[in-house]
C-alpha cells in the first residue's frame, strides 16, 4: 500500500516536472534575445523580444513593445534550407515614428523549414522558424538578435 502511494507520488512529480519543462520551453519558443554592443564597449541585453516577419521585413520588438527594429531591403539567397540575407537598410521605430539608422553591414539567417538546420560552415543550428541577425551600424553599434519567429504575415 505504502509502496503504491510512493509510486503514485513519483509519477505525479515526474508529470509536474515534464509539464513545467514543456511550459517553460513553449514560453521561450516564440521569443528572442537582442544584444546591443555600443561603440563605447557597454552592452545591453534584452531577453523576451518578439521577432516577426512582416512581408519582406523582419521586425524585432523590444520587451516592453515600445521600440521596433525594422530590417528591410536585403539581398537574399538560399543556402540549402537556410535563407541568408544581406540587409542594407534598418530603421528604428519609436512612438510610431521610423528613424533610419546608418547601416554598415550585416547578415540575417532564417530557417523557415520544419527541421533544424546547421548554419553554413558552422556547428550552430537554427531551429525551425529560427532567426539569427548580426548588424553593424554606421556608428559602430553591433546588434545581434537570435530567437524564433513569432509570426509570419504577408
Amino acid at each position, binding site marked *: 500500500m505504502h*509502496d503504491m502511494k510512493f509510486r503514485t507520488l513519483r509519477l505525479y512529480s515526474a508529470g509536474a516536472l515534464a509539464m513545467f519543462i514543456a511550459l517553460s520551453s513553449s514560453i521561450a519558443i516564440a521569443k528572442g534575445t*537582442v*544584444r*546591443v554592443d*555600443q*561603440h563605447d*564597449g*557597454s*552592452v*545591453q*541585453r*534584452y*531577453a*523576451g523580444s518578439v521577432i516577426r516577419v512582416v512581408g519582406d521585413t523582419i521586425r524585432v520588438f*523590444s*520587451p*516592453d513593445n*515600445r*521600440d521596433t*527594429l525594422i530590417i528591410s*531591403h*536585403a*539581398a*537574399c*539567397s*538560399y*543556402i540549402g534550407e537556410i*535563407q*541568408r540575407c*544581406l*540587409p*542594407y537598410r534598418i530603421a*528604428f521605430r*519609436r512612438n510610431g515614428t521610423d*528613424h533610419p*539608422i*546608418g*547601416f*554598415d*553591414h550585416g*547578415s540575417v539567417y532564417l530557417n523557415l523549414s520544419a527541421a533544424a538546420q546547421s548554419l*553554413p*560552415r558552422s556547428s550552430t543550428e537554427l531551429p525551425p522558424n529560427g532567426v539569427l541577425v548580426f548588424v553593424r*551600424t*554606421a*556608428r559602430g*553599434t553591433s*546588434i545581434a538578435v537570435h530567437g524564433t519567429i513569432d509570426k509570419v504575415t504577408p
Partner: protein
Amino acid sequence: MRRFVCAACIALTIASTTAAYAQPRGGGGRTAPAQRPAPAQRSAPAQRPAPAPAPARAAMPATPQMPVASRTGGFQLNRDLAPAPQRMAPPQRTAPPQRTAAPQPVAAVQQRGRPNGTQIAVRNNPPRQMPGNIATRRRINNPSFHGSAWGWNRGVTWNAAPTYWGGGFWGALAFSAAAALFGELMSSGQTYESYAVYPDSPGATLLANYQLMQTPCGPPDLVVIWGPEGSLICAIPNDIVGTGEYDVDPSTLTLVSE
C-alpha cells in the same frame, strides 16, 4: 532498501547540482587555496594579500569586458538616432577622382598593378563602357539550372544590396571593410578591382554551375565576368565558357558574352 536507493539518488543529485553550480562561478575552487593554512616556515607569503586576487578574479568576468546589462525596456540606440555628422554619410560608391578623370599614363596601363593579397579598402569600380554591339551577344545557358526567372533562388527575387561589393552577389563584402585584392583589370585607362568570391554566395553558385574556378584578374586569356554593380571577377576558361568577357543575368544565373 528501495527508500535507501532513492535517498542515495537524491543525495547524489543534490551533490552533483551543487558542484555544477559552483564550477562556473569559479569562486569556490579559487578561494580554497587561500583558506589553506600556510606552512609555518612560510609565514611571510601567508601575510601577502594572496587571498585578495582570488576573490577579485572570481568577481570579475573571464574577459576584460564591460558588464552586460539586462534590460526590459526599449532598445538603447540613441547614439544611432542622433543627427549624423558629415563623416557618417553612406559609404562612398563613386570612384575616387584620380581614377575617373585623370588619364592614366601609358606605363600604368602596362603594369600588372598591385600584388594580389594587398589589403585595400573595398570600393565600387568606376562606371564601365558597355559593349556596343548587342547583336553579337551570346547567352550560355546555365548547365545546372534551366528553370524560370529566379528559379535558382526558389522564386525569390535577388536584389543587389548597395552597401556590398557587387551588390552582395559575390558575397558579404561590405564597402566599409578592407579586403585582399584578387587581381585587377585595366581597361580604357580605368582600373577595375576584383576580390575573392565568398562560398555559398549566388556568385559562387554561378561559378560552380559553369564549373569555373576563380583566378586573379590581370593575366590575358581569362574569362572575365562583369557582375552586378560594376563588380568583376575572373576565371580560368573551360569547355563550357571560353576566353572573353561576359555579363551576368542574375535572374537566370546565366552568362552572356559581350
